């Protein structure tokens, strides 16, 4: 078995097909690597060795019988711990679900499994997706594989750290306000946030239902295109999935960036952005110009209002969504409570961490009588203005290019005590979720201290083919996405 960090998804699949190695060898090598390296980064909450090895044996049997290997046959992957996995503990990284074992699979998990993918484990994240550093997990702190004193980003920090460390070929994750793009950026990997409704949310533990999108953290744009083709599409179990047919995304990989009109939103290139981040972005813009793209400056005037509008929408939906944790049907239940109301109060007090409590209370406040118009309704109006900004921009240009984060990965503990500072870390990522548009985060450089820097491409609704087209052209012309952290 080759060193896993030298393998790509494509090479692994070819290796299986050519019988260079078996699925059992591939999965065992991944599990061994997790055992050896994960203690250094703590990316995984659960490792499902037994079921993974069983599926690997089934894949090997298919190969032995001469059957055609499925698109992901024998390929190990991880999933953020918000995806319901039948028979495998699913915690949302919260104590309130510490012992929760779902009795059904999320649709995205089901589709990856049907394509032959092998789930090797569930990754750490900020509880319920509330955070930008994975420090809000109730169970463990995940370390950035490029520098273990730094955060991996969040909320999907475990997924990004796992992919960067070659612990599984990709990770299924979720982005409500940057939870895929920002950790992908901090860990130097590729992150896809899809158009709202493109991928089913069925079986995914909810954060903000009108903002949540299911996406991927991968080694490359090519892998993201392959995988989106598998998980995208309408689902009768999620009424918000779009009926639009799923295109063949692999076609867009060949088209190149020539003639694409790329806009630079001036509000994203503000003073205060880290000079090293700015420099890498400038170089990436030049690279796109070399590739034939036309660059122009555009304005999204409501960008500064996006953070409060996003958070007010998100937390209002949180207060409704998290009302289901009642200590009765599933999840943590206080053993001391005598009365029903005490059961609610105590179970939730014991099971929820401080950031979850803050968001529930703020959301409850924003929806409460007397404040609804000033907060929730106002946020939905501003959301409309944000959407109109994007609609106007996309009449002139094909894609926007912007930084993912204003600064490189920050230190563990650096922002943990100041919730508002943590919220502000999302300044460039939260803007697109209220508009429902997709984004693709790509590695585009390193700081002099060897910390990853990333850019994001943003397109109109259902523009994933254009994002892949530009992203693939960039990754063919650069090798940032192939750099690996040294964990040995």
């Amino acid at each position, binding site marked *: 078995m080759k060193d896993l960090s030298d393998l790509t998804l494509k090479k692994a699949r070819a290796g299986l097909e050519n019988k260079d190695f078996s699925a059992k060898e591939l999965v065992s090598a991944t599990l061994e690597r997790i055992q050896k390296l994960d203690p250094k980064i703590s990316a995984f909450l659960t490792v499902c060795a037994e079921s993974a090895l069983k599926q690997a044996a089934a894949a090997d049997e298919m190969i032995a019988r001469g059957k055609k290997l499925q698109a992901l046959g024998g390929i190990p992957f991880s999933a953020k711990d918000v995806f319901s996995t039948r028979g495998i503990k699913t915690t949302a990284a919260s104590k309130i679900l510490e012992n929760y*074992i779902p*009795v*059904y699979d999320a649709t995205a998990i089901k589709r990856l499994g049907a394509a032959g993918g092998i789930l090797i484990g569930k990754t750490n994240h900020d509880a319920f997706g509330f955070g930008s550093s994975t420090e809000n997990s109730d169970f463990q702190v995940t370390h950035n594989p490029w520098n273990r004193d730094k955060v991996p980003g969040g909320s999907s920090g475990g997924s990004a750290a796992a992919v960067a460390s070659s612990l599984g070929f990709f990770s299924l994750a979720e982005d409500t306000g940057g939870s895929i793009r920002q950790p992908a950026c901090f860990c130097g990997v590729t992150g896809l946030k899809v158009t*709202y*409704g493109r991928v089913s949310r069925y079986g995914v533990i909810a954060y903000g239902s*009108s903002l949540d999108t299911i996406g991927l953290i991968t080694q490359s744009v090519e892998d993201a295109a392959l995988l989106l083709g598998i998980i995208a599409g309408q689902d009768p179990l999620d*009424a*918000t999935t*779009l009926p639009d047919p799923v295109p063949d995304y692999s076609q867009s990989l060949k088209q190149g960036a020539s003639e694409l009109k790329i806009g630079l939103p001036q509000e994203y290139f503000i003073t205060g952005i880290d000079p090293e981040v700015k420099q890498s972005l400038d170089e990436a813009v030049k690279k796109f110009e070399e590739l034939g793209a036309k660059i122009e400056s555009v304005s999204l005037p*409501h960008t500064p209002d996006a953070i*409060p*509008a996003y*958070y*007010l*929408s998100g937390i209002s939906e949180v*207060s409704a969504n998290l*009302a289901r944790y009642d*200590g*009765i*049907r*599933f*999840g943590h*239940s206080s053993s001391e*409570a*005598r*009365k*029903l*109301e005490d*059961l609610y*109060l105590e179970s*939730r*007090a014991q099971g*929820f961490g401080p950031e979850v*409590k*803050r968001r*529930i*209370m*703020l959301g*409850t*406040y924003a929806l*409460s009588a007397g404040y609804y118009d*000033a*907060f929730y*309704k*106002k*946020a*939905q*109006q*501003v*959301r*409309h*203005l944000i*959407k109109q900004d994007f609609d106007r921009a996309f009449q002139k240009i094909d894609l926007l290019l912007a930084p993912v984060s204003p600064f490189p990965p920050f230190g563990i503990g650096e922002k943990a005590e100041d*919730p*508002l500072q943590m*919220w502000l870390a999302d300044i460039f990522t939260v803007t697109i979720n*209220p*508009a*429902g548009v997709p984004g693709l985060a790509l590695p585009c450089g390193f700081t002099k201290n060897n910390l990853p820097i990333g850019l994001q491409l943003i397109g109109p*609704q259902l523009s994933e083919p254009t994002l892949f087209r530009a992203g693939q052209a960039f990754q063919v012309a650069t090798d940032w996405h192939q750099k690996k952290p040294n964990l040995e």
Partner: protein
Amino acid sequence: MELTIEEVKHVARLGRIGLTEKELEKFQNQLSSILDFVSQLQKVDTAKTKPLSQTTGLKNVWREDVVTPSLSQDEALQNAPEKFKGYFKTKATLK
């Protein structure tokens, strides 16, 4: 926007979260500073803007009203902290 301790208590009660005295104080400060921050939205002119709460444009998505396979009673109860003869068991609602 300074929240009073009473307001924090009220909103915690509405959200059914039990808080200790120490937490009340900590959250009073943190929630106040966050509300201050989000209040900047009041300055945005939205007089002519309708609220937008979703982006798909889909409405009234129906399916055939037929019974399809669903969880068994055992499966539905599998994660219940307390159950009794095939029911979820809960605490008394009255004294």
